[in-house]
Structure formats: C-alpha cells, structure tokens
C-alpha cells in the first residue's frame, strides 16, 4: 500500500471540509465513497483535486465509455486503435497515418479566439506526442444564425484563433465543415482534427516508461491558467480567496508549440526517449498518471522543480494547471544529456522534475515532503462508469424546434431564384471567406485543399496519398440521432470516395448534451449506435475520437436545452496513386452527367427548409456501401471524369457546384421519380447520392457497371454551354451561380468578400 502522506492542513480538522472538498472537485457522494474505498484513508485536498480532474467527464469518459466499447475498432489496416493519444492506420511500406479529432467547445464559448487556438494546439500535441509529424489539420465548426451579432463575434474569434495558431506552427488546414443552426447560438462547436505521418519504428506510445528513467517537463512554464478547467470546475475555492477571479482562459503560444514539435520529433528521431505524453486537460496530474498507469510503473514528481510563471503557486495549482504547450518526456537512461541538448538548441525550457519508480505509486513531493501519494491506476483505470442506457428515454413529443430551421417557403418564387437563394444561404454557400484565412499549402503536400469533396495530400517520396474529410449531419440528427450519426459516417467516407480514395478508418467527436437527463442519455446511445451501424456496414473502423457532453443552450425562459446531438466524423482514405485522384473539374463539353445511388430525397431536414420535420431521411447503409464501392471501381477502370457528393442543398446545389468548378454549364433534366415534386427533386436532401461525370464513350460502361453492382443511376444530362439548365424548371448563368455561392456567406456575416 502507498505511504500515507501528511494531510494538507485543514482537511482533517474541519469536518465540514470532508464533504465539501469532494463536491468542489466535482465528485458525487457516490464517487467520493469510491475514492475513499480505493485509497483506504481520507485523501488530502490535493489528492481530491487529482481525482476530481481525472474522474471528470472530460478525462474519465464516465458516461460514454461503456458505449464507446461497442464501436468497431479492428481492421486489417488499423495500426493503433482508440486508447492512445491518437489512432493510426497502416499505409503500407512501414508508414503509419495517425489522426484524431478533439473538441474545444466550452473554452471557445468563453473566449472564442484563444479557445479555438488552443484547441488546435492540443490536437497537434496529441499527434506529435506519438512521434508523428503533423501534416494537416481540419476543423468542424457549428454556430448560430450568422446574422446575429453574437454569432459574428464567435465566427471571427474562432476562425481567427484557428488561423493564427495553425498558420504560425505551419500545418496546412485542408478542410472542414461549418453548420449554422440556431441550436448552437449559445454553445458553438469547435472540433479540430489533425493528421500526422510516422514510420512504424518512430511511433512512441505512453506505455513504455521504465523504472529509473528521468522525467522531464518541457515547453511553457506552468502558470495559474485553467486550473482543473477540464473538470468543469470554473471556480474552485481552495487556497487564496481570489481564485474565483482567475480566468480559466488559457492563452496559446503557437511559436512555442512549433519549437516543442520540432524538439519532440528530433527526440524521437534520435531515439533518446522512452515515452512522451502531452499535457492537456488535468495537466501534470493526467500526464504523469497516464504514463505511469499505462507503463505499470510509478512516478515521483517534485513540484518544486517545475518552472513557474507565477509566484506562490501551491502544489495543487502546479499539479492541476492546464498551461498550454507542455510535454512530459521520459528520457532513455544514459541519454539525458542528448535530451537536454535538444531542448536547449530549440530554445526550450526543459527541466527534470522527477523519476520513474518501481512501485505503482504516483508520489508528488513539495518542500521535501510527500504531498500526494496515489496509485496511478486509481486515477486512470478505476474511473466509475455509468450505463446511460438504464435511464435513456426517447423524447415523447417530437422536437419543438423545426429542424428545417428556415422559414417555410410559403409563397413559392421562380424556382431558379430559389436555387440562387439556396446557394447564397449560410447552410450551402461557399466557406471560402473562412478557409482563405488558413494556410492550406504549407508543407507542399496539399494536392486538393478546401473546396473539394475531400482534401488530397501527397506523401513526398511515395506514389500513394491520403484523402480526408470531416462532416456532420446535425439537421438529420436532430430528429433521428441514429440516422444523423450514420449519415455523417456515410458522408465523410463518401466524400473521400469522391476523390477516388478508399476509406481506411474514421475518428469521431460526439458533441452532445447532458447525459444525465433521459433524453440526453437516449441521444448518446442512439448516436453511438448509428456510428456502429454505419462503420460495420461500410467496413471502416474507428481508431480515435473524443466525447464532449453537457453542450446545452439556454432558452429565453431560463430553461436549458441540449444542442442537437452532433457526431462529427473525420474520415481518412488512401489512394494508391495520388496523381490519379478524381479531379475537381466540371468535365468536358459533351460529357454525360449522371446521378448514382439514391434519388430518395426529402425537404424535411434540408437546407431548403420545411415547416416541420417528420423524419430524418432514413439511410440505406447497404446501398451506401454498394455506391461507394461502385464509384471506386468505376474510377479504377478509368470511367470517371468527375464526381461530386450530393449534400446540403440537394441535387440543385450539387449541379451548381459542379458547374462552378471550371465555370462550365450543364444541361440536365430532373430524375424521373414517380410522385416526387420538382422542388423536392431539386432541393431535397438524402444520403447516398453522387453526381458523376463521364466521357460519352464511357457512359454505357459506367451504367452497365452500376447495374452489375446494383446501384441505381439516372442520366441527368450533359456538360456544355454557359448556363446551368434544369429542364423544364430553370436556366441560370454561371456568373449568377458564382455570385450567389461566393458572396452568400460574406453577406450573411455582414462582411464583403
């Protein structure tokens, strides 16, 4: 058993504190009881704080872990599944692609610029902590209506923060997703995804520290910023009385991150380290206990040795500070000099703060005394788990917010004008005004950046490449969390397929409301089930992810509404020959334009809008799977000139976007599906639709292949002219489409392009 440290004064004397302390660190009485049973004595305040942070939802996944275990995580190409800093797929020839998505919703709501910036910083560290060099970032964002002042401030702040951080570190931002829906007005979503590459032998995991090795803390000095911020402790009143006023806002330093990244990668390259762990939520507590628990060792840390940015910091503050841009580095015995030399050359502050020990005890020292002594596994592995399905309950009444959101089009205008309005609407319009502030090309590997269905990256010195996309389907999920999550998996992988890449795996970020409420629990359960179903049918495993719960929005009456359950899905696909991706073009004059997959669409949860949604547009995952395989096969046979996913704005928007690629026209007719209104056919949305363009001489072969693969197709028309013509309903000049699509978002945000 661990030595019993002297209690921090006050804990034992004041009986009131006995119950107050665990509550203040966010533990329920039940959890406090578990802690006492594990520790076998009354923990002191620091120890309570460590438990509070590590057993928080954010670090401990209390409400989601049992569900996450149901995700399919195995596959021939999976190199590292969930559980590490990030997951990885095998690209062949010894190269791994490491990736993960992470949320920074709450910090971004408090301080959009710094919240988003430090979100990017955090996900980058997750990737390079594994020894992988980050090669791209993506971001998925969700805001309220863009004409609201508050939204505009959030958009400027969040996009500014992402751009400032990623650009400075020098990682290209190659894609993303933005939703504008009222449900996110108070609670924006900011999810950042990062992709890195590492040779198999360069991979570093947390579970490889051995007793006797030196423990270094490197990077930024430790300050009072964000003390235990992740454990939902906005104002923890332990110690000095002014704690409450301390902002938990953390300010990032991308410059320091760049140095930290280069130094870490050099440490790995020179094989000077045993294990590396980034410091994120719960700071030093989390990093030390995770490395120790995963390596089945102990660790002794002397907080007096930790370089501080503020004076008079208590051990509690040092152990729970969430200062950005720090890494824990376990040196290989005998290589300490090299480690220190690398820190020095990259102009970094790196200090030896402890040692890996034999017994499985995490011992924190201060002023020559032991101030905390806990088994790392208590903090990491013994987190209580709650089975939310036991109280999950579907909402009895349909949602009171029409997920269509937009006012119903009562007085129907000319359908051509409606298409222009739809292209200019925030749900559909080009995101260029946002992503042009991101460096998309640094690294010179971006073959296709933002603006295509998915981004394409080359790998220098190799023939193959990667395609990646991040997507979400919040409107569908609002009425059907299962369908929305499944549709998001389908869309992300389909986008990758539209570049000619085979989806290898996904990462997911579950942005949901309060899991303690029956409906929140139901949404969580259904969301995970939707991902499971889609992954299984489409044959893509989940290799990493993140859960962000308690995303709630207040209504004017003071009640609290959960946001729509929003699964953000990042997909990574592989191209054997990166130069042979499906190009982002309109096609040549005379090329045949077809719709493949499903023509079943509805206005119910579309960007066009409906007054009340009755269904979330069910997805046929078997058809989706056949469609994706068909597109890849058609491309492999050289039958495709271009491909474009039908998504927000339906077939009308898809055709318009296709025209805008090269500024060429298309003459088309709507697919003849019995009983479907022309507006539904043009603006309706539904999964599993891809618009394909083929040279005339290949069209028959393409249709024959589709027939053989049991994928329905509809021939829509041909490329040519300088209008988008959809007979008999509209004919619009390309310039008008461009104007609507490009200026829509700037106008909605009250800016000029």
């Amino acid at each position, binding site marked *: 058993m661990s030595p019993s440290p002297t209690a921090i004064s006050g804990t034992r004397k004041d009986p009131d504190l006995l119950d107050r302390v665990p509550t203040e660190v966010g533990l329920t009485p039940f959890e406090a009881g578990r802690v006492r049973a594990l520790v076998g004595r009354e923990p002191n305040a620091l120890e309570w704080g460590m438990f509070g942070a590590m057993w928080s939802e954010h670090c401990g996944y209390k409400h989601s872990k049992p569900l996450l275990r149901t995700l399919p995580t195995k596959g021939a190409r999976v190199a590292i599944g969930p559980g590490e800093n990030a997951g990885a797929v095998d690209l062949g020839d010894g190269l791994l692609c490491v990736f993960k998505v992470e949320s920074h919703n709450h910090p971004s709501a408090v301080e959009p610029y710094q919240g988003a910036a430090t979100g990017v910083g955090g996900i980058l560290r997750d990737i390079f902590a594994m020894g992988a060099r980050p090669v791209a970032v993506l971001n998925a964002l969700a805001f309220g209506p863009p004409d609201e002042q508050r939204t505009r401030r959030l958009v400027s702040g969040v996009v500014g923060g992402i751009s400032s951080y990623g*650009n400075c570190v020098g990682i290209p931002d190659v894609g993303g997703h933005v939703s504008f829906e009222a449900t996110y007005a108070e609670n924006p979503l900011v999810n950042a995804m990062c992709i890195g590459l590492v040779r198999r032998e360069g991979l570093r995991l947390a579970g490889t520290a051995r007793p006797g090795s030196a423990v270094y803390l490197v990077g930024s000095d430790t300050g009072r910023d964000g003390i235990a911020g992740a454990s939902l402790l906005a104002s923890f009143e332990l110690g000095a009385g002014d704690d409450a006023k301390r902002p938990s806002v953390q300010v990032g330093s991308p410059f320091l991150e760049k140095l930290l990244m280069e130094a870490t990668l050099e440490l790995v390259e020179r094989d000077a380290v045993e294990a590396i762990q980034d410091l994120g939520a719960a700071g030093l507590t989390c990093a030390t206990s995770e490395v120790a628990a995963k390596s089945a060792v102990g660790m002794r840390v002397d907080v007096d040795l930790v370089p501080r940015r503020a004076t008079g910091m208590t051990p509690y503050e040092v152990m729970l500070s969430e200062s950005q841009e720090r890494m824990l580095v376990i040196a290989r015995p005998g290589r300490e000099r090299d480690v220190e030399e690398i820190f020095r050359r990259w102009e970094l502050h790196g200090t030896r703060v402890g040692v890996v020990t034999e017994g499985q005890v995490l011992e924190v020292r201060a002023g020559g005394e032991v101030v905390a002594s806990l088994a790392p596994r208590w903090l990491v592995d013994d987190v209580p788990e709650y089975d939310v399905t036991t109280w999950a309950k579907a909402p009895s009444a349909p949602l009171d917010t029409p997920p269509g959101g937009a006012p119903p089009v009562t007085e129907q205008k000319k359908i051509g004008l409606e298409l222009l309005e739809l292209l200019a609407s925030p749900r559909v319009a080009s995101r260029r005004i946002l992503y042009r*502030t*991101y460096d998309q090309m*640094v690294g*010179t590997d971006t*073959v296709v950046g933002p603006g295509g269905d998915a981004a394409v990256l*080359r790998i220098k010195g190799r023939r193959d490449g990667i395609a990646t996309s991040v997507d979400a389907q919040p409107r569908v999920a609002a009425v059907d969390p299962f369908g929305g999550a499944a549709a998001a998996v389908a869309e992300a992988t389909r986008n990758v397929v539209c570049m000619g890449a085979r989806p290898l795996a996904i990462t997911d970020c579950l942005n949901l409301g309060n899991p303690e409420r029956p409906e929140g629990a139901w949404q969580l359960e259904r969301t995970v089930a939707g991902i499971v179903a889609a992954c299984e049918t489409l044959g893509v495993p989940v290799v990493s992810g993140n859960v962000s719960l308690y995303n709630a929005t207040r209504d004017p009456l003071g009640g609290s509404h959960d946001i729509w359950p929003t699964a953000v899905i990042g997909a990574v696909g592989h191209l054997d020959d990166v130069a042979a991706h499906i190009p982002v073009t309109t096609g040549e004059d005379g090329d045949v334009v077809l719709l493949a997959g499903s023509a079943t669409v509805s206005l119910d949860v579309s960007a066009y809008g409906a007054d009340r949604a009755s269904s979330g547009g069910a997805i046929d995952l078997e058809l989706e799977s056949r469609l994706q395989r068909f597109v890849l096969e058609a491309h492999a046979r050289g039958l495709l000139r271009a491909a474009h996913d039908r998504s927000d704005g339906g077939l009308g928007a898809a055709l318009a976007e296709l025209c805008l690629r090269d500024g060429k026209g298309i003459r088309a007719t709507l697919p003849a599906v019995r009983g479907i209104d022309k507006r539904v056919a043009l603006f309706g949305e539904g999964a599993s639709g891809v618009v394909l363009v083929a040279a005339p001489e290949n069209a028959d072969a393409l249709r024959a292949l589709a027939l053989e693969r049991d994928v329905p197709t509809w021939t829509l028309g041909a490329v040519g002219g300088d209008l988008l013509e959809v007979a008999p309903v509209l004919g619009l000049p390309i310039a008008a489409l461009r104007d609507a699509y490009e200026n829509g978002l700037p106008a909605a945000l009250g800016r000029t392009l």
Partner: protein
Amino acid sequence: MARVAILRFPGTWSDRDFEHALSLAGAETEILWHEDVHLSGFDAAIVPGGFAYGDHVRAGAIARLSPAIRELRRFAEEGKPVLGSCNGFQILCEAGLLPGALTRNVGLEFRCDWVRMRIESDATPFTRGLKGAEVRMPIAHGEGCWVADEKTVERVEAEGLVVFRYVDERGAATAAGNPNGSLHNVAGLRSAAGNVVGLMPHPERCAEPLMGGTDGMKVLDGLVRSLGTAPAPLGV
C-alpha cells in the same frame, strides 16, 4: 552542383519546402540553424517563410537580431544571390537588406490564395530573361503590405527595384489584383545590386504540376541556371 543554404530560425516552416523544390531544380541544399550559419562554400542563400520568433513585435523583427543576419549581410555584400520569400522577405526588410517594411494586410486578415504577378525586372539571378512575364503563385501571409516613405517609393520605382508586381486578371496593377494593400502593388523587390531578392509569394509551393502550378520553378530554376552548374530541371 549549385550549393544552396536554407536558413532556419526558430519558427521557420518553409525550409523543408524549399529543400524539396530546390532538389527538383537540381540544387544541393543544406538547412542551417540560425545560430550556426556559415555561408562560405555556398553559392546562394534562401531565407524561407514561417513565423520566426512567432512574428512577435513585428514579422522578422526578432530574427533580425540573430547572428545569422550578420553573416547573411556579408554574403550579400559579396554579391551572392539571396532570396527571401514571405517571412524571409520580411526579415530582409527588417535587416535593411531591402527597402521599406511589411505591415499588416489592409484587410487585417491572413490570406492564403493564388495571386498573379508581373515580373518587372530581370536584373536578378532569379528572373533573368523573365522580364514582362506573368506568373501565378500562392501567398500565405498576414503582414505582406509593403510600405515605405514617399522618397523611398520613388527611388524604388526610379531604379527599377520592383521585381514582382501584383496584377489582376487583365494584367493591370489594380487594387483588385492586390491582395494586401501594398503600395504600388509591390509583391517583391531587389537590392540595387540585384543579388538580393525578396517576395511575399511562395515560389517553392508551385514548383511541380501536382501542386497546381509550376511558375515557382521558373524562379528557382533561374537561380540554379545563373549559378551555371545545373542539370536540366525535373518535372517542368
């Protein structure tokens, strides 16, 4: 083979990109850490893009204090070719190797996009024979607005120091073609002697067809050819 030094400051990120692009142009390269920059034995030097020292204070301001700058100045005085791109251009201006200063884009936003430029001077090792040519290159910067006092601007124009000028689709130096508000649409400059050149765009990002353009290779290839030892470039 031409030996080209690529300077790396804390926060530089285009170093590897230049290394790759120059290797396509047939040059031998070495990345040098700013504290140990010794340029004897090199035929040319590149100051690449990035955020040296986080661009704190002003872009290039802290990098200017590095020992590398003294060595670079000496090297430039010997008449050796020096190219600064993006942050490198900012550093060269801060160091006084090129006139004027680069300030925040008038739109106040970082901008990553393709721009068009006209090459206005061929009196540099990078642009020989390219006078009048129009090129397309990517930019990625938040502080690329070139400013100087009136007298300097006049001198720069009178002496023909503008090497790259932003132009619109019709080839005119209009506001529409200017991504950052630079005076006189200046995108890149040379020193009076012509061997030091700086520009905001990124030639190393458009040196192969897969990257969407090859005009950058013209500049890098120009350098290698001017050094007189290059094999035929690859991939263009």
